[in-house]
């Protein structure tokens, strides 16, 4: 399972970690430059073909769980497991529906990356915000948007979370604080930084003293080369915004390998360059991700500023359902398939007696039903009516201006007939 976080030496298999001895180094928090410099020289020697998961940061030693050595309780474990299963089954169903023609356009599936979504989002409160890219179905589901709403949205029906107007790439939910769903990579990062800015503004200017909402920005390895990413790393660190930049490094941007596209492939290093901790974590292991997430979120809530977390993960399917996925090496795919996060976590739960086989099977069955129900619901939902075409362009409907009769266009009873008059 790779190199373990050494804070819980009894629970996870511990392989020789010659990288850094947490006992010896002082308890500096994530990504202190001293620690990073130490790991830097060592990780350089790893060839690109043998990238192993390494936790390049340490945690101060005071964070041991008081009662048990395990990383999760049974309830938490089952919750996380259910979430990951929901993500996997839902995405598989999306693929089926796409090939049956019920779903169309661009659909980007999240298979294989569930550990990142569940690991992070299950630690959030309802008021915390999540901003994602086009690969956003599972982020929305983890944050609490009902599967029915997401499936209907994908089918383009009016009962979808965005009434069919957004689609696969634009999942918005004001209720659950899912702020999109953006097709342009990197576009979500400044928006997420703005949401974090709001949290700070509310605390400092509007004097809502207990406002400690954090924001998570999810994006990929390709985005880590984009200008907006760097602009936001700078401003988030400058103003100490409560945001966590989560890089889902799945090594491929459509067909462009991360190693071909990036001068220095270790994305976590970009954090300290801007004055924030940068952490690299094994994104196929939900527990490791969860531990790192807890610290990063805690840091942000306390007002200590942003964190950059690079999760090394992998997408089992192509970039989208239209991607023939010919460029990736089948051996690489097999290697990561063997590290399927769901199988690993299931094994952990069973081995540590947190759940029995039967309980987990029951969860899987329940999720199957949930997803099938969502498909039925979406199927039976009506398509948007014609009048919906002109709705919601503006929050203030007078934004369509004045008609030939001198009155506001929106006051005309025939306004939303869907003609191109406007």
């Amino acid at each position: 399972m790779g190199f373990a976080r050494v804070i819980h030496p009894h629970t996870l298999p511990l392989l020789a970690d010659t990288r850094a001895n947490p006992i010896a180094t002082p308890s500096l928090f994530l990504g202190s430059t001293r620690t990073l410099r130490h790991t830097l020289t060592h990780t350089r020697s790893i060839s690109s073909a043998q990238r192993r998961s390494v936790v390049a940061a340490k945690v101060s030693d005071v964070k041991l769980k008081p009662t048990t050595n395990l990383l999760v309780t049974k309830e938490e474990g089952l919750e996380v497991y259910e979430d990951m299963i929901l993500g996997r089954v839902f995405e598989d169903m999306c693929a089926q529906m796409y090939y049956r023609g019920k779903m169309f356009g661009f659909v980007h599936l999240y298979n294989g990356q569930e550990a990142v979504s569940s690991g992070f989002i299950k630690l959030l409160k309802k008021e915390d915000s999540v901003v994602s890219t086009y690969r956003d179905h599972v982020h929305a589901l983890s944050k609490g948007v009902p599967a029915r709403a997401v499936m209907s949205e994908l089918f383009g029906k009016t009962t979808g979370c965005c009434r069919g107007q957004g689609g696969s790439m634009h999942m918005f939910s004001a209720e659950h604080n899912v702020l999109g769903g953006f097709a342009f990579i990197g576009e979500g990062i400044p928006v997420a930084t703005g949401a974090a800015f709001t949290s700070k503004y509310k605390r400092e200017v509007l004097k809502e003293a207990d406002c400690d909402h954090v924001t998570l920005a999810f994006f990929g390895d390709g985005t880590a080369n984009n200008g907006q990413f760097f602009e936001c790393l700078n401003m988030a660190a400058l103003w100490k915004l409560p945001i966590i930049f989560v890089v889902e490094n799945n090594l491929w941007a459509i067909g462009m390998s991360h190693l071909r596209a990036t001068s220095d492939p270790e994305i976590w290093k970009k954090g300290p360059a801007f004055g924030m901790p940068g952490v690299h974590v094994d994104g196929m292991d939900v527990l490791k991700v969860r531990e790192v997430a807890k610290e990063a979120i805690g840091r942000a809530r306390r007002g200590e500023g942003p964190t950059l977390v690079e999760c090394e993960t992998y997408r089992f399917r192509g970039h989208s359902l239209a991607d023939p996925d010919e460029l990736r090496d089948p051996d690489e795919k097999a290697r990561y398939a063997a590290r399927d996060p769901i199988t690993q976590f299931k094994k952990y739960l069973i081995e540590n007696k947190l759940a029995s086989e039967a309980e987990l099977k029951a969860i899987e069955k329940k999720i199957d039903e949930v997803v099938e129900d969502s498909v039925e619901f979406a199927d039976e939902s009506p398509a948007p009516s014609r009048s919906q075409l002109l709705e919601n362009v503006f929050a203030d409907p007078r934004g369509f201006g004045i008609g030939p009769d001198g009155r506001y266009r929106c006051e005309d009873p025939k306004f939303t007939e869907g003609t191109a008059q406007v």
Partner: protein
Amino acid sequence: MGHHTNLLSYRRRLFQPSPAGDRKLISIYHSRPLFSVNSNLFCLIDESMWGIIRQNVGVTGGLSSQGLGNHMMRLRPVASAMRSYSSATKEMTVRDALNSALDEEMAADPNVFVMGEEVGEYQGAYKITKGLLDKYGPERVVDTPITEAGFAGIGVGAAYHGLRPVIEFMTFNFSMQAIDHVINSAAKSNYMSAGQINVPIVFRGPNGPAAGVGAQHSQCYGAWYGSVPGLKVLVPYSSEDARGLLKAAIRDPDPVVFLENELLYGESFPVSAEALDSSFCLPIGKAKIEREGKDITITAFSKMVGYALKAAEILEKDGINAEVINLRSIRPLDRATINASVRKTNRLVTVEEGFPQHGIGAEICASVVEDSFGYLDAPVERIAGADVPTPYAANLERMAFPQIEDIVRAAKRACYRSVPMSATA
């Protein structure tokens, strides 16, 4: 002349349309109209002022940064009698108008904040945000690094959560670095989220050419932003426009692109007391008829309104009575007012500083052809900037943008009184 009317008979018009009375007033000053009264809008006409004060201001030809307003209303009360009347028209530069509007909106709503380059300690690159940092502090007047895409997106993210950012672009040319956020994450979000998330953000800054700033600092973005559904695009001309429209923009729940003009910042215009009131707002999407006429309609926005008014004066001497429409709002475009005007005058000249292809004039022309084709007596004349990147040399730059004589010539062409194409002035 009998312009020394009784000052006590002067009345201030408060929101009430009184077209008959207004036109009667205007007709006295037919030869030198400053602005006409549109029944929808608030104006203060102080007839007494015009009679008493006569300023001999030299009219400079060619590219002049002095607006018509300056010529007419450089009011320095001569008689002490003037000072005692509270009906005295106040003058305000566009810069002060914007500053006061921002100040008042920030005071009224703690959710409003300003963000941009040099808005804080530098007091604003063009001093529009002067004094705001001292008053509201660095959390509400945020100096940013040079990261247009970053801070425009931050503004959008803050607006998603209900704050009301006013994002300043040092010029709208720099907005091209952030145009993804203006359009994709601001304009389209209310639609994509089916109304769940609206974006009450204002993007403001100078637009269009200044003087000698070169090709990369001189483009007009009205046409680009005006074509995007989900945005509102406003183009103030006078100080009253600036105040009213900026306040309306800040209060508006939708993303607004507020295109100012650098050369207008220093110009003074008279403002009514209504405009000075802190709850003064102008409606978005309604154009203003600056000067009423019956022979030809000239539409313009921003600085070109001043040029159009001057051109109208010149045309008057040739017996062409021009109606000048100040668009005030590119999106939504006030097609109703434009079409009504064209149906009255039957001829149209559109003026803009932007590039000609796919410009504002093209849209107005199409709108008029669609709605009022039968009323047109002549083809629509479009005046726009030259179809070249802006040159630097002063004489070339003058040729690259519409001048008053261009407007006059086009108007005469539309009235079939053509003048040879070669420039005479």
